[in-house]
């Protein structure tokens, strides 16, 4: 049984076919990159699968169950989590509280109204461990709004990871950060995600990053899946090269302009 299967998934915004009849199957443990030019429908696909948008038609099968009509919180509880292209944090909470909140929520402890949050040593230990995994231990007590962009990006991913999802969507986890930070962020994310065996779908523009970390690459264009395959297969695909970088031929992806 596949972890996720989308069947004829569609999401239109007027004449714009954001997600156009997408049939995609994701197996457990895969690290998939979702690539494509701007407006290809990558983020829309993530939004529909994570219930941020409702689908116009089609089905979303998660672990064999049809979750098409479930809410955001139901999908989170089922095991689908995501980070955001534009950092989406609890800005007036500390880095620690951001992560701790995700853990409290996962454990159903946010219903607890009569105990002090900081007295929960289990959650405290786990939140500190997560911050440590993402290299944010030193920023534990800083407000999220005060963190640097790269740190905010990592915290955004850490928040989703702390939910211990089965399927994790990471929407451009390295956008808006320097090339140097990009490598570090992806190394951190890849090691954490692979270490825990979490299935990840990463929306990414930087093809160097994509080729380096992915098991499988899914190329989207105008809302539909144009191609999918291993990094080696995609590297050789001239149609993909034309659409993504505007040139084709052998080693098109390796040429730097």
């Amino acid at each position, binding site marked *: 049984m596949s972890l996720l299967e989308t069947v004829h998934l569609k999401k239109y915004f007027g004449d714009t076919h954001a997600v156009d009849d997408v049939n995609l199957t994701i197996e457990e443990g895969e690290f998939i990159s979702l690539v494509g030019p701007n407006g290809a429908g990558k983020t829309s696909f993530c939004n529909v699968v994570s219930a941020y948008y409702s689908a116009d038609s089609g089905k979303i099968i998660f672990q064999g169950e049809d979750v098409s009509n479930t809410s955001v919180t139901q999908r*989170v509880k089922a095991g689908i989590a995501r980070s955001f292209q534009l950092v989406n944090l609890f800005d*007036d909470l500390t880095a620690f509280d951001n992560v701790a*909140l995700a853990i*409290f929520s996962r454990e159903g402890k946010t219903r607890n*109204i*009569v105990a002090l*949050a900081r007295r929960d040593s289990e959650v405290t230990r786990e939140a500190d461990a997560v911050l440590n995994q993402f290299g944010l231990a030193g920023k534990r007590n800083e407000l999220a709004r005060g963190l640097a962009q790269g740190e905010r990006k990592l915290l955004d991913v850490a*928040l989703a990871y702390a939910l211990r999802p089965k399927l994790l969507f990471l929407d451009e986890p390295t956008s808006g950060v320097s090339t140097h930070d990009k490598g570090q962020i992806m190394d951190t994310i890849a090691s954490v995600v692979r270490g825990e065996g979490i299935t990840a779908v990463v929306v990414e523009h930087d093809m160097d990053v994509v080729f380096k970390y992915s098991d499988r690459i899914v190329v989207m264009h105008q809302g539909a899946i144009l191609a999918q395959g291993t990094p080696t297969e995609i590297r050789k695909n001239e149609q993909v090269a034309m659409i993504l970088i505007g040139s084709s031929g052998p080693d098109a992806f390796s040429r730097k302009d």
Partner: protein
Amino acid sequence: MSLAVAKKGAITSTGPSAWRPAVAAIAILLVLAVLPSLVDPYQTLLLTYGLIMAIAALGFNLLLGYTGLLSFGHSAYFGAGAYTVAFIVRDLGAQSMELCIVGGLLGTLLISALFGFVCVRHTRIFFGILTLALSQVLWSLAFKFFWVTGGTDGIRVAYAKLTLLGGLVNFAGPGSFQRFVFAYYYYVLGLFALATVVMWVIVHSPFGKALQAIRDNETRASFVGISVRRYRWIAFVISGAFTGLAGVLWVPLNGLTTPDILYWPFSGEIVFMSVLGGFRTFTGPIVGAVVFNYLKTYAVASTEYWQLLLGVVLVVLVLALPSGIVGTAARLAARFTRGTS
């Protein structure tokens, strides 16, 4: 005042460990405990009113400061508590203040659960307007159904008929008003301390953290699995209950409940108190309520244009001290600490 303002520098529960605020709270409580022996009964009476309003503002701020929802209709819950007590005393002949509290809280819970269910479907100005409109519905009911509510005459609740602590303290006989003021002060002080501790635990609980998360970013809150609307509703009901408790305690002191406490300017006063003290801090609304009570009392006594005076204070406050008394004091203290270290 916009909620954008509410978000900036909003309350977080990081900071010094629990013992420092606890020591400060005990010190303040001791001062409050000896105060009636040092001041005249009128000042004790004023302070009792201030503490009652502090409970109301504390409840209100669970919504504004911690959940990011600005209610303009908290008079409804204050009034629900007050009128329920009035009905219990008048129609059921109840004497026990504890029975009044239980009844008043149940009445308030019913109203706030119902109103909250409708209001939390919206946020920002829509939420504010809905809370205002619903409170006005209660006001018009109290105003028009005079055969039930006494209309503008209101309902009398005589302190002399009430007993405290399950009948242990009663106020029959001569000189009873002074005895009532003295005893009731301690009664209110006890409940105020209890309400403050309960609220402190709530805002520092995982549930309180979830509310702060909703305040900061409701989209992300739902993406970590929090049912935003349900949590807002629970916060609304708790907030209403605290304000209702204040209404319950207020009635015997005032001796009368009238539709004025359901009218929208009274909701405005509760907002004023929180802004005055600083809604971005836990203690701000408490300080704001006590200070506002003195401010209003002396403004009313000194000029017939007291509303103008309060209006000027509000304008100056928003322009000069947007973080309120406590927020500004905390900032100055932090600057002083940095300067000396």
